């Protein structure tokens, strides 16, 4: 997808102010808000796109200033991409990402999950889908132990209520816990 070059600079009339949960105000160009269903609907319903309407600051109680800063960075980069409402966009299922996206999302998992929640809250589909794919790519192909490390999860082995013995794994075909016997040459199909 190619981006057009910006042709206009923001003016006070085409801005709105959003306030993060920690009270910081951000001046947002209306063009940027088109990527977010939540903000686009709000602007349309309160007619904030009209110059003669008084625009009150919009409180975003679920989003911190750090997350807002990060989201604005995304919105600015995708400023000339299609609006959120174009449902016919088929988001990629690939695990290959643009260099810019890789650098943008080169953040710790907890921050990424918070950003994902913020993208979900503001309904920014392209950002939401991209983070979901990045997070899935960090899980794919890893063993259970590696996933625990990536997601910072401690195992919570359950014991059988009657015997007190740890319940055995019910799936044997997942690759975790396999022996290290190597096969050579490649096994013939059945």
């Amino acid at each position, binding site marked *: 997808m190619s981006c057009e070059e910006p042709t206009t600079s923001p003016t006070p009339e085409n801005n709105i102010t959003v306030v993060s949960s920690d009270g910081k105000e951000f001046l947002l160009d209306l063009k940027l808000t088109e990527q977010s269903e939540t*903000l686009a609907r709000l602007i349309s319903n309160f007619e904030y796109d009209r110059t003669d309407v008084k625009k009150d600051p919009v409180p975003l109680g679920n989003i911190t200033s750090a997350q807002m800063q990060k989201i604005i960075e995304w919105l600015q980069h995708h400023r000339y991409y299609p609006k959120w409402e174009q449902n016919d966009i088929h988001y990629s299922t690939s695990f290959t990402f643009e260099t810019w996206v890789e650098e943008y999302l080169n953040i710790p998992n907890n921050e990424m999950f918070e950003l994902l929640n913020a993208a979900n809250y503001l309904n920014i589909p392209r950002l939401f889908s991209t983070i979901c794919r990045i997070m899935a790519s960090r899980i794919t192909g890893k063993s259970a132990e590696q*996933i625990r490390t990536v997601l910072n999860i401690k195992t919570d082995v359950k014991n059988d209520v009657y015997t007190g013995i740890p319940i055995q794994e019910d799936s044997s075909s*997942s690759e975790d816990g396999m*022996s290290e016997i190597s096969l050579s040459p490649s096994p013939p199909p059945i």
Partner: protein
Amino acid sequence: MLSVEDVVLVKEKFFTSPAMTSFAIRFQQFMDRSQLESVFGKPFCGRDIDGLRWFFLAPRSCQKVLKLTIRYLGYITFCRIIAENVPERAVIRDVTARILENLDFFSILTLRKVCWSLREFLDETKIKPNCEVMLKLNDKGAYMEFRTPRIQKFVRFEKYDNGCLLIWSVRKMRLFKDESFIEKFLKDYRIFSSYMGSLNSFIFATYNDTKIDNLLPEYASFHAKEVTFDQCSLLQIFQFLSFFDSKKLDKIKVLDYPQHQDGKLSKLCELEQWNNCKYVEFAGEDFIPHIQDFVGFKEVKIQCLEISTQKILMLKEQFLKSSTLTRFEIQCTDDYFDINQIREIFGPEDEWFFGNDKEVVHFVITELDFIVFNRLRLDEVPEGAVINEIK
């Protein structure tokens, strides 16, 4: 009596009314959960609450949320809350499910081993992995192959003395001494089918001495779009086909149908799996088909030893009468059908059209000597073609 439509109506009214802050309804008969889910989506239903909860964002605000609670004791309540009061877990569950939708089946199996809460979450939400699955089974083992745009993996469950040898595509293996391969396979297949719903392709390859009774217990049940029987006898096909969910099965393929088998498939016609299926392919070197066994399908492809002119005439009549058949293709080994006799009956060409004002049946002997019947719309008939009118 309260319907799901009534609940939807109250929800809509709630959003448009500036005055309403809460609304409670008591009812006698509990509503169908699947119907509620089809309208409102998956509920947020932690084990700590005595009912189902949904949260809806008000259209004119990103702060106001409508909470709908349906309690098992027979109360429905609507109330307005602010976004900060939506339980974080309700959002997290939805978001987590969206991440996991990007994973293949093997990664989901591995995730089930990470921790119990994740396993419970996965089993509850039934994430549908994005992959195609092919399964092969015979009396020596089972083979499952998973294909996604990114990954192609397989796992094999092989018979090994009294145990089972598991082999993965990453060239690793593990021996289970006291469990048969079929027990191991069925255990995993059950987890698999609870996630996947149905297989893309199931191949059952066997030899004449394979006994299905030894291979599959009574409770085995398969959901597949397509099943292939490779070298299976009529009895084996009959026995094995009955393990399939007839509602999911779209196509049956019989390859290399053994020699000296009965050409009459009336036994298969007793099965709803055979009768409900739309597509069939049947190939056997000395197979002589009975047209009546195939007229219930939409598309039929047969590779056989021979077909008599009488049967071709019968097929034409059946095709004209049928409301289901759209294509019927026959290929005879050694081109064993009488083309001259056919030309004597239908005319000197190699293709003929039969029809009325609405539709036409096209009968052609192709350059490769395939006998093909096709249903055409009038506008699909080539210009100048002579349509033999049927009464």
